[in-house]
């Protein structure tokens, strides 16, 4: 049986003006468990707190009910008071008789009556309170960054610079991501490679960073501070430690006709390849689907020419297990497929290209060595049409495009148009737009320059259809401002295709129990206040995996994610919230209902042996709550059909007792 002390606060006249505090203290004296009851002018003052501490000592109190202001105001204060008095801080309950009583009711009898009832409810609850202690868990001081684009690179560098080891997992043979494929970057027009490749080198040379290129995350177990991750290192058939990246094998390989992914398939690469000159790691990789040695056992030329003896046709996928304290997702984006946009003739004509393909066409390291030439016949295009919002802002999202704005297209289209006019002033450039969205530093100025200084024609309207006819592309479009239909014979059409999260994101989210929105972007813990954290503790978000972003934004978010990771890894131990769910294993059915509603993936299942009444044993599947992950929402307690799941601090019997006390 508890020995409860009731402390009714006057809060000056704030409470005492509408509530007869003496009557409340008196009425609560006769409640079950109450052995002491008093009132005081300011319970939260030092004198008030001293009074509580003294009362605990004098009366051997085990639980406290404070009738005062909102627990959101002073619950923490009174919990500390309880701790000072030698009680468990969670043996305190607050009856909110100020904000929810004296301040909203006018008449003394009514206020007093309600205050007594609220006090009774709090007493009923404290009677069932049990001491709670927050759980502790250690922190592995190493971070995992999934994705080696600019987001992952920046996050990894920032974490590593703070002194924590970081591993980067990248599915491609090299880090660098999409930014490595870009030519110039808006709004400053500095060259992407010039600012990215030094960072790639920094990563490669950083003593705290390991790169797992051509690798994937295969399995994630554990929780914040203690993730167990299995990384699959795909066989690249080249010994990374031996390969010097000299490129002799690449030159000699006879299987030269494989679409070059780095150049968006606009030229070819051999079966053994290094994606680009500044690749990190600069190591060759054999495309197993294209290599005749791997397919038929014939050839072996690369092995013969390799001075380092790095070629290993017997290499197998390798699995590496490592522990991490935090995981950063930086899986980035891809351009959506244009297959369903028949009206733009993407699949009919080589001269209808996406903007990312255009980047490669204008890049000095691209298939045309930076000369703007039509993919079909290598001629210089004189009339270029850019189409914005291709697949973005679509209502029928499931079928064709995406419902969201891809955010970066307006700016890169302005960039492409401007650069084209700059380099080839004889080229006629028309951009069709629905809206031009330039809300960034120096963005609108950039767009205006494209129009005013470089003479790019911006037409408010949309291209309805494109028909390839002979050497030209017949573009039919609307010009809404002039209320006319336009017909342009273009040499090249560039589609600003929508971007979407990388396909690897969805299975990864499942592994991480991190939540995603319907578009497969990772959701943040709070859209405004916790924008770089996933709701799953210990999982952080960096870059376009969370939503469309340009480079400056991605880098800011990467830094923010890194600082969150550093904040976590700095701790030696994590203290949990003690008000968390717990399952009574004897009653648990193992039905998985709780697991399905848990927003944090805090619930796992164990096969446990139970002794039955007839002395036999039985193995049953039972739920187990990870105290480091559970946030205490209680969704599981209601989903649980048997009532095995309960929430500490807000237990079924406690809430039921409050209901009973109020309804008595």
């Amino acid at each position, binding site marked *: 049986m508890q020995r409860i002390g009731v402390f009714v606060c006057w809060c000056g006249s704030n409470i005492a003006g509408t509530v007869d505090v003496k009557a409340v203290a008196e009425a609560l004296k006769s409640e079950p468990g109450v052995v002491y009851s008093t009132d005081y002018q300011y319970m939260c003052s030092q004198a008030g707190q001293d009074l509580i501490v003294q009362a605990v000592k004098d009366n051997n109190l085990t639980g406290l009910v404070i009738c005062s202001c909102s627990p959101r105001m002073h619950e923490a204060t009174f919990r500390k008071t309880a701790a000072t008095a030698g009680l468990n801080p969670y043996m305190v309950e607050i009856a909110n008789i100020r904000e929810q009583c004296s301040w909203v009711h006018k008449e003394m009898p009514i206020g007093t009556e309600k205050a007594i009832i609220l006090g009774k409810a709090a007493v009923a609850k404290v009677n069932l309170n049990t001491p709670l202690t927050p759980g502790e868990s250690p922190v592995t001081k190493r971070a995992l960054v999934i994705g080696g684009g600019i987001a992952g690179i920046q996050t990894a560098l920032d974490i590593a610079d703070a002194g924590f080891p970081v591993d980067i997992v990248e599915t491609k043979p090299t880090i660098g991501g999409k930014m490595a494929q870009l030519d110039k970057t808006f709004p400053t027009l500095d060259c992407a490679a010039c600012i990215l490749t030094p960072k790639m080198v920094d990563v490669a040379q950083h003593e705290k960073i390991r790169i797992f290129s051509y690798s994937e995350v295969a399995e994630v177990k554990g929780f914040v501070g203690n993730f167990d991750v299995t990384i699959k290192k795909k066989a690249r058939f080249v010994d990374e430690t031996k390969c010097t990246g000299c490129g002799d094998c690449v030159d000699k390989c006879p299987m030269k006709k494989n679409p070059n992914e780095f150049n968006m398939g606009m030229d070819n690469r051999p079966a053994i390849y290094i994606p680009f000159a500044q690749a990190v790691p600069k190591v060759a990789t054999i495309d197993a689907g294209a290599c005749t040695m791997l397919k038929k056992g014939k050839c072996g030329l690369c092995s013969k020419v390799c001075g380092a003896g790095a070629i290993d046709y017997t290499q197998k996928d390798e699995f590496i297990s490592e522990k991490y304290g935090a995981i950063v997702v930086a899986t980035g984006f891809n351009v959506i497929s244009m297959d369903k946009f028949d009206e733009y003739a993407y699949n009919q004509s080589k001269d209808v290209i996406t903007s990312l393909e255009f980047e490669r066409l204008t890049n000095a390291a691209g298939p045309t060595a930076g000369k703007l030439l039509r993919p079909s016949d290598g001629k210089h295009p004189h009339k270029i049409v850019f189409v914005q919002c291709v697949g973005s802002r679509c209502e029928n999202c499931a079928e064709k495009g995406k419902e969201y704005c891809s955010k970066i297209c307006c700016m890169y289209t302005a960039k492409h148009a401007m650069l084209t006019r700059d380099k080839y002033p004889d080229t006629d450039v028309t951009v069709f737009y629905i809206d031009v969205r330039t809300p960034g530093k120096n963005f609108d100025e950039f767009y205006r320059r494209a129009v005013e200084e470089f003479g790019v024609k911006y037409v408010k309207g949309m291209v309805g259809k494109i028909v390839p006819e002979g050497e030209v592309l017949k573009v039919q479009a609307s010009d809404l401002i002039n209320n006319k239909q336009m017909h342009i014979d273009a040499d090249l059409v560039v589609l600003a295709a929508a971007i979407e999260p990388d396909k690897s994101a969805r299975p990864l989210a499942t592994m991480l129990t991190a939540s995603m929105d*319907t578009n497969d972007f990772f959701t943040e813990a709070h859209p405004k206040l916790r924008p770089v954290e996933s709701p799953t503790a210990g999982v952080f978000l960096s870059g376009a995996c969370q939503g469309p972003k340009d480079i400056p934004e991605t880098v800011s978010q990467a830094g923010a994610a890194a600082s969150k990771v550093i904040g976590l890894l700095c701790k030696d131990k994590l203290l949990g919230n003690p008000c968390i769910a717990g399952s009574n294993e*004897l*009653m*648990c*059915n*193992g*039905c*998985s*209902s709780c697991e*399905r*509603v848990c927003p944090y993936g805090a619930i796992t*299942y164990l096969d446990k042996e139970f002794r039955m009444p007839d002395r036999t044993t*039985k193995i*049953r*599947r039972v739920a187990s709550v990870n105290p480091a992950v559970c946030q205490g929402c209680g969704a599981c307690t209601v*989903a649980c*059909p*048997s*009532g*095995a799941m309960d929430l500490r601090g807000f237990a*079924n*019997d406690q809430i*039921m007792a409050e209901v009973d006390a109020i309804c008595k």
Partner: protein
Amino acid sequence: MQKITREQLLDRAVALLSDGTVNSVLGWQKGEFDYDVTPHIFKSADELKEGFVWNDFCYANFSKYLVLKTDRIEGKLLVFLKPCDTYSFNQLLTEHRFDREKVYAIGVGCEGMVDVNKLKAAVDGISSIEATEEGLKVTTIYDDEPTVVAIENVLLERCVNCKSKKHVAYDELMGEEGEIIDSARFDEVAALEAMTADERFAFWQNELSKCIRCNACRDACPACTCENCVFNNPNSGVETKAPVTSFEEQMFHIIRAYHVAGRCTDCGECSRVCPQNIPLHLLNRKFIKDINECYGDYQAGEEVGMRAPLVDYTLEDLEPGEVLNRRGEDA
């Protein structure tokens, strides 16, 4: 009359027992009267030949038995499942309530089962029953000549409104693969919904006041397999067994129906076993109908691993007020 014969099932069961595929059989056993067929675990071929039956009275849904029985026996258990039973079978698998590896399931085609109460109401003093093409030939202690009762007049409610002749789970199927039926099972619920609140209250007060709190509905329900039922748990706040006018009593049926909401396959066992003939299925079907209307068609147990609607959500779900008022102010 069932299309599959007792002999077909018996032969198959004996064969599976003798080749060691299974070492016991969960089947229906002859009772004292022809209509009180009871579930039984047969351990040998002889026992099967002696007591196994398959007829129009094999109404019991065996799925629930698997939860306890698969733990208690060695080797595999052969179970016979009618189409509606297979939904419960899948639902229990979804909830990890038994080990699929320990069960060999034979799907048995079903032509509908007889409601013994209806039969008794039609014919008094039954001494024996024989299934024929024309119907049930019922011999009574009063008459020399047997009475023939057409089976469609005495079918169980759940069979009259059969939702599926399709087996959604089995290792082996005997008889033809059936179809999912577009049944009229929600008509009664809709009729109640169309009444005024006063009429509905009068209806339910009349029905629920009959309850003697025997717990048969819970005990027969294949969704009620909790290790420790809340109604037996002194800490749940709803435990009690005596029929008193307390909370537990007043709320029993609401809590019971809510507990199985989204998991109930509408197998109809609750109504079948109710000794007071309370139409309990109308509570379960109300939830199913609401779920179908508000969150999209959902048939519990259709597949293993489905996410039940009450442990799921969409961002566009209706507000509770919209659900309540979707048919107008008071309807």
